[in-house]
């Protein structure tokens, strides 16, 4: 196994009477594709954090008047920003795909005895909402609606 786990992982409240060897982390730790996909999912946390702050910067600029806003918008034309935004978009899509895949089983509709709708139905709903809202919002932002 590749490395020790937390020394108290799965330790009993009252220690056992004989000496134990410390717990180890499974060798599959980040070597399997499943584990890597999961870690990548978590790692998009950095992307979301940054995306959030960049959005704040833009909206803040909007509130500061035309000059500030125009330069903030202009800055986005910098190729580095474009590459970043492409990367961020890919991350967001990746997050959506994984999250929506896992969503039906975690979804909380199962509060009472009533059966939640079957997985494929929930999936269809989620993807429809995602695509629908994206199209709608894109149209609005791009000036196709409410011009």
């Amino acid at each position: 196994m590749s490395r020790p786990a937390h020394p108290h992982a799965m330790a009993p409240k009252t220690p056992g009477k004989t000496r134990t060897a410390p717990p180890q982390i499974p060798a599959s730790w980040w070597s399997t594709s499943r584990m890597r996909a999961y870690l990548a999912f978590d790692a998009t946390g950095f992307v979301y954090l940054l995306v959030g702050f960049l959005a704040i910067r833009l909206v803040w600029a909007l509130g500061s008047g035309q000059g500030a806003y125009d330069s903030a918008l202009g800055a986005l034309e910098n190729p580095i920003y474009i590459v970043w935004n492409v990367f961020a978009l890919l991350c967001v899509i990746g997050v959506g795909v994984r999250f929506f895949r896992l969503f039906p089983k975690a979804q909380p509709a199962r509060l009472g005895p009533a059966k939640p709708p079957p997985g494929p139905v929930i999936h269809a709903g989620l993807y429809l909402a995602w695509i629908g809202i994206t199209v709608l919002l894109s149209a609005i932002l791009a000036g196709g609606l409410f011009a």
Partner: protein
Amino acid sequence: MREVTKTFVLTRFDPDQDEAPRTQEYKVPVREDWKVLDAINFIKDEIDPSVSHRWSCRMAVCGSCGMMVNGEPKLTCKTALSDYGDRVEIEPLANFPIVRDLVVELEGFMDKFKSVKPWIVRAKQKAAEEGTYRQSTEELSAFKQFSMCINCMLCYSACPVVANEPEFIGPAAIALGHRYNMDSRDEGASERNQRFREEGTVFSCSYANECSEVCPKDVDPAAAVNQAKFNAVIDWAKGLVMPKGGS
């Protein structure tokens, strides 16, 4: 039946003699329909009787024979050797203190297990004379899956949070608590939800989903844990509105 020889690398650890775990290799003539457990039993019976491991039912239901096989947590009585190459590494379950050889410490798990009150809680116990409860098949299916856990603890070996957060209640125990919360005969949900928000909370789970990937009984503990989160939040919100006891 065809026989091939495979090499088994076993973790050995005897606290009386070894400072730290070591490995030992055994060559075993393996029949093609053998499970991993058959090979370990062969080693114990015919080559080295000092190898220690737990097993009993050999039919994937008692939950005692979980080990790491080539780095993955497996129920060894259910895992076919034909899925593996010539060299098979067998280690004790990951994320658990090691008592000896392939035997891990279970008491930590038992503590967590008990902490979710895995029994029917009711203000008033029904007497046998009053007959059984009625439960629709819908009501049964709301928790049935989560009652299939054999406590093999493979999910604990796979979960990255368990490895790093000793307090985390962990997949199987949360699934069990959730199982009772979802049972139409139970009235203890608020007590368990309280527990789910205490130390080692359900929220520690980052939905790695590995627990469900390795579960040999399709319990899908990841589903249980993540449903439990939502219910714990609802229960908490109810507590805010009505400070004296939510649901």
